[in-house]
């Protein structure tokens, strides 16, 4: 009975989700079959009006921006979670968490607006044009910091007190307890938080669009303007027709594939560390 009802609901959801995937594939079908998928990785670059659909530069930009954001946000987020679990005076913990929850809910448009009016000019004063891979990385890092901090905090909170007490009873210093026991014990939770964050960085559109400069090129330095795949879709989709539109959908498919691979990898890591 329960199996029937929930199975029915699950099936409905599956159909709905299937429809989304179908739409993606159907819309990108013309270029996928028409021009072959290799055209997304060869050619002079992204000039949709002249039928050039090389996505590689944008792919690298997407990966570079995500990776950079993670490199900044993961250590900072984890350390601030460590702070609130192990170092913070008691009265500070709740306000800190409140701030994090608040920030996790700020719409990306607002981050973008702030980045465009505050961050980009700052960087431009240092090394023009300002709108760059660096600003994208910083804004993305800022956006995912709360996620990482909150999930890490939850993971640290889930570390068995018996482990922490055991460590303390061995005379470990606070540093020893944190680095030796708490963080290793929480690694799976922290990892899955980081994964969530990675997905968000890969899928983020508006904020990056506003600060990254959106020039289609393979980034050679942090100060180069870049265009990520999502920004490309958002910038061009309203004006795209025919093959161009199909190619944009195809880049959506590509993003999805990356995310799938990531999710699968995380699954493997999780399974291994559980065993």
């Amino acid at each position, binding site marked *: 009975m329960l199996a029937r009802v929930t199975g029915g609901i699950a099936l409905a959801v599956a159909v709905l989700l299937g429809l989304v995937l179908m739409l993606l594939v159907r819309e990108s079908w013309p270029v996928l079959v028409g021009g072959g998928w290799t055209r997304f990785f060869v050619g002079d*670059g992204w000039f949709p009006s002249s039928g050039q659909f090389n996505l590689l530069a944008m792919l690298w930009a997407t990966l570079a921006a995500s990776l950079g954001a993670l490199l900044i946000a993961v250590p900072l987020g984890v350390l601030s979670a460590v702070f609130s679990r192990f170092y913070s005076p008691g009265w500070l913990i709740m306000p800190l968490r409140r701030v994090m929850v608040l920030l996790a809910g700020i719409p990306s448009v607002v981050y973008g607006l702030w980045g*465009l009016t505050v961050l980009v*000019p700052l960087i431009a004063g240092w090394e*023009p*044009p300002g709108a760059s891979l660096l600003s994208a990385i910083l804004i993305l890092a800022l956006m995912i910091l709360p996620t990482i901090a909150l999930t890490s905090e939850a993971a640290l909170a889930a570390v068995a007190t018996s482990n922490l007490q055991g460590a303390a009873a061995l005379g470990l210093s606070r540093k020893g307890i944190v680095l030796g026991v708490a963080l290793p014990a929480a690694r799976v939770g922290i990892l899955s938080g980081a994964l969530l964050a990675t997905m968000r960085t890969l899928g983020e559109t508006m904020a990056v669009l506003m600060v990254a400069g*959106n020039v289609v090129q393979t980034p050679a330095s942090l100060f180069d303007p870049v265009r990520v795949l999502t920004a490309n879709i958002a910038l*061009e989709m309203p*004006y795209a027709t025919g093959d161009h539109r199909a190619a944009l959908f195809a880049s959506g498919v590509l993003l999805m594939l990356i995310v799938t691979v990531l999710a699968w990898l995380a699954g493997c890591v999780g399974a291994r560390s559980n065993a």
Partner: protein
Amino acid sequence: ADAQKLVLTGSSTIAPLALEIGKHFEKLNPGVRVDVQSGGSTRGVIDARVGLADVGMASRALKQEERDLIAHRIAMDGIGIILHQKNPVKSLNDDQIRAIYTGKITNWQQLGGEDRKITVVNKAEGRSTLELFLHHFLLKNPQIRAHVVIGDNQQGIKTVVGNVGAIGYVSIGTAEYEEAHGMPIHLLPMAGVPATVANVRAGRFPLSRPLNLLSKGTPTGLSKRFIEFAQSAAVDDLVTAQYFVPLAR
């Protein structure tokens, strides 16, 4: 759509204006509703063609293959080159602009300014402003060596505001407003013609585009009344309030 409801879709540039015109139209015609949706000029063309929208909006002239629709001009929009206020360069000729945008000139020093790298701000593929700009300067998009690619007007202005070395092109009305409100930008004259709303209206300014409403075939009924209203002098103040250029009548 039913007879008392009018759906407009298309250019995000026109949308705020159309929204205001729609509100006035609703006031004058009780019981009528005007729903405005944005989404881009191409969307306006497609929706008007397949009938999803009663009236489309396009911030450009129709292309050859879009001639199955009829364009009804409701306002003009001039496109002007803007620089940062602190940039001492006060004018550029077409060749210089072409050289900047194609990456042949990369430092303001080469144009008599300070020793500062030029940041070229360009519009994203498909935007009608870009097409207009390319058309005027006889350029192809792949030739352009941009440092920042933007979507909408405001992003362009904010980019130039935040970067002393930047050059961009935006809607003149918008730029005039922002300049008047203390944003550190200035508009360059084009071919000796100062970039002002008045010059655009008078047809003297070389770089301008029409803001069009689109209909499939000759408009009838409510659409016809709305388009006529949108073209009438009654909306001139609305157009001005959105920093566009009213039609010369």
